[in-house]
């Protein structure tokens, strides 16, 4: 048989594509339920990690999450609570949520109660790094000002450079930083080591060699946290 005849080539590539496509689809469909469980658990462990709660094994994640995350909230841009059904914040797809028109956005908040009875609010953030999306969870004290903890993740940042936003050394810098200066929303900036922000906001050191990813984290914080300004203000007025 002539392997270089047109018909052989066309039939060969057609069979190859159908075969490979079928195998991939089959594997994907069979593994999808397991994968969804893993991804949901990973999200839960990120939220817990923002609260400095370590979970020993993957099996304990759902139970630990249920224990500490006491309520899901959806708030609007005025800081009013729209919905507090179970998992209403957990089910929000941040990627889609960020693309919505400002006025249509419902902002997810996770209300958490720690062992010592203190209440924290975890805010999901979502933005762009150098190669792909980056996201994270920022836990804020119930004074609506001080950051309690942060956890960042990424899809495809460079290992050893941008990917270091997932390391504790970077994330722990955010602890105890204040979002407000003199009652004005300023956010937390990510600055090159040795520089200070001109607007007087609190800041953390960027990762050397990963300028764009670091900037991405700064922009993500700015864009996502600012929308919660009225919500934080309400918290502040309650605690005062």
């Amino acid at each position, binding site marked *: 048989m002539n*392997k270089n005849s047109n018909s052989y080539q066309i039939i060969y590539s057609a069979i190859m594509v159908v075969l490979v496509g079928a195998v*991939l689809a089959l594997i994907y469909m069979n593994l999808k339920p397991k994968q969804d469980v893993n991804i949901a658990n990973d999200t839960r462990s990120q939220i817990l990690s923002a609260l400095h709660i370590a979970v020993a094994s993957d099996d304990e994640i759902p139970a630990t999450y249920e224990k500490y995350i006491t309520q899901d909230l959806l708030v609007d841009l005025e800081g009013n609570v729209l919905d507090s059904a179970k998992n209403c914040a957990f089910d929000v797809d941040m990627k889609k949520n960020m693309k919505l028109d400002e006025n249509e956005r419902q902002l997810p908040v996770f209300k958490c109660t720690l062992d010592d009875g203190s209440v924290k609010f975890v805010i999901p953030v979502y933005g762009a790094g150098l190669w792909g999306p980056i996201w994270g969870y920022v836990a804020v004290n119930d004074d609506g000002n001080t950051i309690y903890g942060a956890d960042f993740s990424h899809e*495809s940042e460079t290992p050893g450079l941008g990917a270091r936003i997932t390391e504790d050394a970077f994330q722990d810098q955010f602890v105890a930083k204040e979002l407000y200066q003199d009652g004005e929303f300023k956010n937390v900036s990510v600055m090159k080591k040795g520089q200070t922000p001109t607007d007087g906001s609190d800041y953390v050191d960027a990762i050397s060699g990963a300028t764009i990813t670091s900037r991405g984290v700064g922009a993500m914080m700015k864009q996502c946290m600012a929308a919660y300004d009225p919500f934080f203000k309400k918290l502040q007025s309650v605690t005062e």
Partner: protein
Amino acid sequence: MLNKKNKEALFNPLSKDNPVLVQILGICSTLAVTVSLEPAIVMGISVIAVLAFSNVIISLIRNTIPSTIRIIVQLVVVAALVIIVQQILIAYNYEVSKQLSVFIGLIITNCILMGRLEAFALNNRPWPSFLDGIGNGLGYTIILVIVAFFRELLGSGTLLGYQVIPQWCYDHGYENNGLMILPPMALITVACIIWVHRARNTELQEN
């Protein structure tokens, strides 16, 4: 099992026919993942696995592949293999899959893979092809680890994430070399390794 030819397929890529040092393949991923040791090792293991199995698959179907579309066939095999591995990892070992996610693209585009499929698997039987895949993967991993060792040690003062340069060095004015974690130093480090390698293997030198 291991006659002379098979031994050559397995061991030559470690030094005399090293994919990075002699064939100068896979340089782009050498730049990308050698900032610290851990990703370098993970990348090395992934490449060994994918290279060995894609070599076997291509070798099995080598007599049916039309030569005009062989590159596309190779690409499809490699890409499918990598995606299958990724999907299985997401389902059964999510932690590892998170670490590997960035490497998926790098493995598919790694020139060593296409290079070995083209140069070896298309003309050899499955078993030697498998050994050739393992050998070249190992040869690549060795260089990755050497480069990453120096870049992490001098650039961050750590190895595998553990601090190895003691604090008193920093107290006495020692600084991590920020240049080491930038891509150009990977090239320079690789070049230094090639220099040493050629100086020791005179048969590789051009006249």
